[in-house]
């Protein structure tokens, strides 16, 4: 560990700067200079030496540290756990009400006996979604984030410690309904899935580019409602690919079950 700033890297250095009168000239001064107390001799009284207290010393600590460093490191721990157990961990993100829980309920019902599922539910309040999942028979942990608008890696870490998911299983992490904040927080998932329902408008990918940029798959839900709406599926995909040319798409209805076979096939990805 670097002794000067406590960082773990070795490229970091501590810079000590001389205190100067003008803060503007501060940055250009020589580094690593020890400031000596200023000793001033009085001309009239050579016998008396006055030692002024050492002036405050400004020290520049070169940190070069990612602000979300702590979350990223915890996410990597989660990822290591998932990979070691061959667990497919999926982070489901969307705006509120696009049908994430409905998609999971349907998946649990249709795939019962074929796959082993665990679910982590993130909501600001209530355990209503966890109750819906528990009714489907999967072990579930509800995380209430309170004012927090997204899940973070340490919350997921706690949840997997209590869930203890088995080898070869699937862990669904339903993030807080929010198309902005969850995009920045890696949870250690193997895949990120953004769910969008056809009632939301096809321009969501360019309005919320961060979320679509970081997703692996876009599940377009509620296609049973298409006959009642002006919704241009192809335009949605076009916008999505502008933000993320590698984005895959699936069209489903969690209510009627249309298109769900494609989703189940996708779920068999290798960790």
């Amino acid at each position: 560990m670097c002794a000067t700033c406590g960082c773990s890297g070795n490229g970091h250095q501590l810079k000590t700067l001389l205190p100067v009168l003008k803060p503007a000239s501060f940055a250009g001064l020589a580094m690593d200079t020890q400031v000596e107390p200023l000793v001033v001799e009085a001309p009239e009284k050579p016998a008396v030496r006055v030692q002024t207290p050492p002036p405050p010393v400004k020290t520049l600590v070169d940190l070069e540290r990612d602000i979300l460093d702590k979350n990223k490191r915890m996410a990597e721990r989660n990822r290591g756990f998932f990979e070691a157990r061959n667990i497919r961990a999926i982070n489901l993100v969307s705006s509120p009400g696009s049908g994430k829980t409905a998609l999971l309920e349907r998946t649990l019902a249709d795939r019962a006996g074929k796959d082993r599922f665990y679910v982590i539910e993130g909501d600001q309040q209530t355990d209503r979604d966890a109750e819906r999942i528990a009714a489907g028979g999967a072990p579930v942990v509800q995380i209430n984030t309170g004012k927090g608008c997204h899940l973070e890696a340490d919350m997921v870490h706690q949840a997997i410690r209590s869930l203890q998911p088995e080898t070869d299983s699937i862990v669904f992490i339903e993030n807080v309904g929010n198309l902005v904040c969850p995009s920045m927080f890696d949870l250690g998932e193997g895949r990120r899935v953004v769910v969008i329902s056809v009632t939301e408008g096809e321009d969501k990918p360019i309005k919320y580019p961060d979320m679509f940029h970081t997703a692996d798959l876009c599940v377009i839900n509620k296609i049973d409602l298409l006959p009642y709406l002006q919704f241009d599926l192809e335009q949605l995909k076009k916008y999505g690919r502008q933000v993320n040319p590698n984005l895959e798409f699936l069209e489903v209805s969690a209510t009627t079950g249309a298109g769900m076979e494609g989703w189940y096939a996708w779920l068999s990805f290798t960790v």
Partner: protein
Amino acid sequence: MHELSIIQSILESTLAVVQDRSETCTVDSIDLQVGALAGVELSTLEFLWPAAVGDTPLADTKLQIEQLPGKAVCSDCGKSFNIGFYYDPCPDCGSHFLNITQGEELRIKSITLVSAPSPPPQGGGLPPNLNFDWNEGKPPLPGGRGGGLTAPQRLKNQMVKN
């Protein structure tokens, strides 16, 4: 409002650095680098900062933010260009297969600490009653060593005069 989480992370990292140091010090300023594609609203960050640090040791700490523009290299034709949004195409060939080379940064570049002057050593030095300011009441010395007086001393002289 992930900006609050971000401020929380900045606080934790900074306080950890302060606690690791042997001398007591305060944090004068924190220098951040935030890329244009990092997903952080700078105005929100700056707006939330004073309230978020109000009850912490960083209440007087300045937050200085350097914004880094987005840069990309086209994977299809090799063109380098500035990118403002993820959906910006390559200006030469229109491709969206891009390699983002700058703009996703969200980092604490440096922290400037101020260590409080340590008290005069016990036993050593002059007895307190002899520790007078010979400059008192006199104009500051022109040039020479007197020019090296530190800001607090200048201030002290001025206060004595007024």
